[in-house]
């Protein structure tokens, strides 16, 4: 059986604002039914990639196709099959929860007969029961976010694009959203998301890209990426107690007040830890370690 066409394909994608390249030669494909993550510090170009994908920002050069269609030429058709969860909750403050969904359904030309049933399904799916008549201003951050996600699902999208879906939410809401996104995936919906949370990337993403300054730094499956680029374990201890002589097979990095000693096996790290006293931690290396290794530890201007 031939593999189906990718849901999204970007080749040598470039977006410039004046002389500055927000996205600089980015290529990747998103296959049907997978969850694809874009990771990167603020200003890395993640949101710009999403905006080009949902036809809100024309590309400067390169190839981009969504459902096999060109966003420059067939935006309405692409957006008809797409769900978008933007970074900030741009709900319609003039409308109640239910009316937000009803009016939004109108933008997709959904037949009125089915809309109320669809709204009830989504209210239940995102655990928003009993809030149908609530004004938007009275909703908590978590409720707003769930409503934005429900709104993005009205047209039964084949691809849902999510820009930092759980930023600023409490752990309960975050886990609820993760569960719902996984459920969508089991139904064959494709997900493309950006996140700052490595835990979120681990929970959801089949594959991911690490980006910075508009370029791709690494691409792969989360576990394999970490395994291919970092030793399996790390000892974290105060930089003052950093070991002076390192045994073979270990590497040491010092960042501010902490030192990190990497090694394949945790056993080799234990003698070093013992010498440092009680203030240490040995753990598996994570996506976050890799992320910081790739993108550096200096602070970023927020975008």
């Amino acid at each position: 059986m031939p593999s189906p066409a990718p849901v999204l394909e970007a080749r040598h994608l470039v977006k410039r604002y004046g002389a500055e390249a927000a996205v600089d030669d980015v290529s990747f494909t998103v296959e049907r039914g997978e969850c694809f993550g874009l990771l990167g510090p603020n200003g890395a170009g993640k949101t710009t990639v999403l905006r080009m994908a949902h036809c809100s920002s024309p590309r400067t050069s390169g190839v981009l196709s969504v459902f096999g269609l060109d966003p420059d030429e067939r935006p309405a058709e692409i957006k008809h099959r797409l769900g978008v969860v933007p970074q900030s909750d741009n709900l319609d403050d003039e409308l109640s929860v239910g009316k937000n969904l009803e009016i939004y359904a109108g933008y997709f030309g959904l037949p009125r007969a089915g809309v109320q049933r669809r709204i009830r399904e989504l209210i239940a799916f995102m655990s928003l029961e009993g809030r149908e008549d609530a004004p938007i201003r009275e909703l908590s951050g978590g409720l707003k976010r769930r409503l934005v996600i429900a709104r993005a699902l009205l047209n039964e999208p084949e691809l849902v694009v999510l820009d930092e879906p759980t930023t600023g939410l409490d752990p309960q809401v975050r886990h609820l959203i993760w569960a719902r996104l996984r459920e969508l995936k089991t139904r064959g919906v494709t997900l493309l998301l950006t996140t700052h949370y490595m835990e979120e990337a681990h929970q959801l993403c089949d594959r991911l890209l690490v980006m910075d300054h508009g370029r791709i730094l690494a691409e792969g499956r989360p576990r394999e990426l970490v395994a291919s680029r970092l030793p399996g374990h790390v000892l974290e201890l105060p930089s003052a107690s950093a070991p002076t002589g390192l045994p073979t097979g270990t590497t040491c990095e010092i960042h501010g007040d902490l030192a990190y000693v990497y090694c394949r096996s945790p056993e080799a790290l234990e003698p070093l830890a013992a010498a440092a006293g009680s203030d240490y931690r040995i753990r598996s290396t994570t996506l976050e370690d890799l992320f910081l290794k790739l993108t550096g530890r200096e602070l970023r201007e927020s975008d």
Partner: protein
Amino acid sequence: MSLIDRPPVPNRVERILAVTRRHVYVYTRDFWANSFPTVLEPLTFILAVGWGLATAVGRMGGTDYLSFLAPAQAMIAAVYTAAFEESYGAYFRLRVDHNYDSMLVTPVGVDEIFWGELLYTGLKGVFYSAIVIGVLALFGTVHSPCALAIPLVGFFTSLASGSLGLYAVRFVTSLNQFNFFISGVISPLILFSGTLFPIASLPAALQIVARWLPLYPMVGLARMLNTGVFAPEWPWLLLYALTVPCLMAAFAVRLMRARLIQ
């Protein structure tokens, strides 16, 4: 929630109407609070101008002063409602509530967002000018059944005025700058378009300018419809009234496209 048979992509007109429908819904949800002031205004106008100023002025433009003012008053209502809706209102939708961003990720495109919005603004102009001329008719200021068409002129008046509002939205960087728009653009537009006095009383140079202001032909047409007496220039006024607001609207849509799609 299995993948359903997807309904067809809505066509351009359906997408424009979906946007208009949103605005109409938001308006009608608060119908009385939104509409009652429009009824009140011509009533206070009648009290102040009808019993005060009109008595002092006497006749103007071949009719009593109140009948001279009534159709202009309907057009002024259409100017104001559109000017506010598409300046402060559009600014809020653009910068504060981000309504346009949320519409833009649906099949609705940026052009349709603003054509839908200007259509709504035009309909508001129909409604407001109808209320004003309707209320003033009770006081004997309407002299011809042709006046029934005045709200249609109100549509194009609001279209032009709303487009000016969107031009302002394109360039302001803070809400306070709309004061310049209201006192620097809308007020002179209203005062120099032959609303309160015939432009013949203006200096010759100003008359030429006034003749080209987008409100001038609207007031002229409304006044002719009000009396049923049509001056020979009426086809030109009609041509201007039908075309210029549409061109202004098309330019406003273009500006907003450049503002939103980057």
